[in-house]
């Protein structure tokens, strides 16, 4: 068994509380994450990603590997930021893993985030163990992205459950109307 090397990993962190921000930056650094770019709210985060797209040399990063964002921020909150990342034409990477860190853990909130295409959610109060588990999940269990007329995001089906009956799903990989893009 070997250890992950996070040295080449670039994380963008959007968190408006200076205290929590430094806490998270510090935790990620001690875990070995090479680059953590921290910004204060969703607007700054969008601005940062635009710069990554337009002037990567000046920002010093070609690609953000993981986005970690608070939900409740002003003036641009995490949900608007997520929407921009997943849907806006200027987004440098609409497929980037996006994790909310939030004290909103009510089921309807989780559902709302999932429908907007969130990859994972880290609940406050968090521990290092939680952060570690989420990182591993993002690395080891990426999901295919699904694009339909009203959804774009990581597949909302996480588990492959054995189903003891006939396959009645309307579409499969070979159906007409299904396009598979590999890269």
């Amino acid at each position: 068994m070997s250890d992950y090397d996070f040295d080449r990993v670039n994380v963008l962190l959007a968190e408006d509380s200076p205290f929590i921000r430094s806490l998270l930056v510090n935790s990620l650094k001690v875990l070995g994450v090479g680059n953590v770019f921290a910004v204060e709210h969703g607007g700054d985060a969008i601005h940062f990603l635009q710069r990554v797209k337009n002037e990567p040399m000046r920002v010093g990063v070609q690609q953000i590997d993981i986005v970690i964002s608070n939900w409740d921020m002003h003036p641009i909150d995490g949900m608007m930021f997520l929407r921009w990342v997943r849907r806006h034409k200027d987004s440098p990477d609409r497929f980037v893993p996006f994790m909310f860190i939030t004290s909103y853990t009510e089921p309807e909130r989780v559902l709302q985030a999932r429908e907007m295409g969130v990859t994972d959610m880290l609940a406050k109060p968090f521990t290092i163990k939680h952060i570690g588990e989420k990182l591993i999940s993002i690395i080891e269990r990426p999901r295919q992205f699904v694009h339909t007329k009203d959804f774009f995001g990581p597949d909302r089906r996480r588990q492959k459950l054995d189903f003891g009956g006939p396959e009645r799903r309307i579409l499969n990989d070979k159906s007409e109307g299904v396009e598979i893009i590999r890269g």
Partner: protein
Amino acid sequence: MDKNKPVIVRFYRFKNRLKEKTAGLAPGNTSISKEAMEAAQQALSKMSEDYPDWVSSLIVKLQEQHSRCVDTPEKRHELFEEINRIAHDMKGQGGTFGYPLITAFSDSLYGFTVKRPGEITDNQIELVKSHLDAMRAVIRGRVAGDGGEMGEKLSESLNEAIAKYDDS
């Protein structure tokens, strides 16, 4: 696929580049080094100890804003905005570090300093002070958790102040 048929769903399946980046191409299980996990947990705990100091520094800032509200009534709307911003900063974090009372009190402060039209009365300024007093007592006494009897008393006296002064 027939080009004329409309696409109903697209699936994007990519190579796992993040895994390549962090675990290389070698087969086998990968984990986060135990030492790194322990070091990070220690760093987090160490920083959490600074939480009361951080809150104290914010209470000092709130205190300054409160004094200005008393001295320059014409600037109250502006000052309330700043108070509201600081309260927002505080309210999300208390629970994380074992001080839910700070979250409760700052949430209450946040709630009644939200921007609204009309005059900001002396009573409302007095209410800011009641909140600051309650928060200060929590931090001074290191009243963690729900604070037991002490916590109950603090919440009660703050609620009394709210009942007395809140004329919004």
